[in-house]
């Protein structure tokens, strides 16, 4: 039962309260770069969700079975980046072979996901302490955290793309065109998401 509560806490925490893009500022480059059209935003969001979940699972194992066991934690950054990059390559190959339809829709976004700081961010957060229980992340918690962070990213990206499609038609001052208006939009969204910080259910945290 407590496990279930922790999982709910982690999911809501990563999707809404500490949204990766709007509260933690991770993965801003794709958030601004790929959010001009709804269809590409969905593709990118799905690719990131996919990579994040699988990377969280693999890296938890590598971290515990190799790095912590051999006392080599200082190598984390290098090892994690290499794992994410090779994982993306591997997934590309596997998807091309077995699920060509999915590959067609996510294909071009997968390599972009490899250099996304949100993915490295979530696996580094997974090596720290779980804010809800105070202990280290277990395998299931790490996986859930990765998946929820991906869902949060997808949500923010899709909302942003919807808004920016409307903004195309709006009459905005010349100096605000492009990045500035996108940042204002993101700021307003972040303001809305700030409201979720009132959602606190941290019984395990105290």
């Amino acid at each position, binding site marked *: 039962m407590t496990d279930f509560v922790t999982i709910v806490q982690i999911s809501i925490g990563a999707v809404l309260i500490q949204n990766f893009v709007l509260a933690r*500022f*991770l*993965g801003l480059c794709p958030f601004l770069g790929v959010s001009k059209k709804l269809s590409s935003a969905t593709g990118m969001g799905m690719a990131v969700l996919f990579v994040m979940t699988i990377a969280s699972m693999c890296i938890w194992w590598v971290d515990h079975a190799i790095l912590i066991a051999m006392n080599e934690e200082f190598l984390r950054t290098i090892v994690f980046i290499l794992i994410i990059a090779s994982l993306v390559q591997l997934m590309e190959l596997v998807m091309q072979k077995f699920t060509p339809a999915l590959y067609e829709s996510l294909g071009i976004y997968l390599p972009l996901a490899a250099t996304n700081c949100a993915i490295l961010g979530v696996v580094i957060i997974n090596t720290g302490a779980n804010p809800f229980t105070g202990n280290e992340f277990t395998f299931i918690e790490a996986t859930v955290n990765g998946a929820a962070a991906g869902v949060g990213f997808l949500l923010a990206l899709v909302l942003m793309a919807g808004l920016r499609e409307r903004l195309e038609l709006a009459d905005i001052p010349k100096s605000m065109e492009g990045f500035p208006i*996108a940042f*204002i939009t993101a700021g307003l969204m972040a303001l809305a998401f*700030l409201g979720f910080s009132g959602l606190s259910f941290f019984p395990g945290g105290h």
Partner: protein
Amino acid sequence: MLDIDKELKRGIITENPILILALGLCPSLAVSTSAHNGLGMGIAVMMVLAITNVIISIAQGWIPSKVRIPCYIVIIATFVTILQMFMKVYTPTLDRQLGIFIPLIAVNCIIMARAEAYASKNNPLRSFVDGIVMGLGFTLALVLLSVLREFLGNNKIFDLLVIPGFQPMTVFILAPGGFFIIAFVMALVNIIKSKKETKAKT
């Protein structure tokens, strides 16, 4: 040969990494909550940028172009790890404040962009200068953002009280404020740029 004035102008003004090229936005918004953090992050990025530029420029002859991106990533991540260990020992407070954004320097777009666009095509000395001026431009933009945010959100600059009695707006320290400040600074840059262009035309 090397024209330092021109290089400085390029790094800080015409090709400013944050305000013009819009690279490395994640750390610039996340750590700009106080001027101390902004300055610390800027210097950390500048050091990594200068060293990796030199190494990549020296190694360019040996790296096959097909696997250059993974090679660059490993070189960059190595120096980020070294930096992380140094910061843990010598600046533990800053290390705690910046948190996960120190390892994330490794996937910062600026470093990769400079490696790919500049260091892999130029000699080590030029690459070193490029790393320094680009890092300087990044640091100055980051300090500008964080000074604005710290002043509006906390009424302080470098932990010193600015206007006694001014009621700070906490939202500027939080996430939305970061987005608003960078939006307005970028809009201001756009205005200055378009003014200059019209002046150049007439």
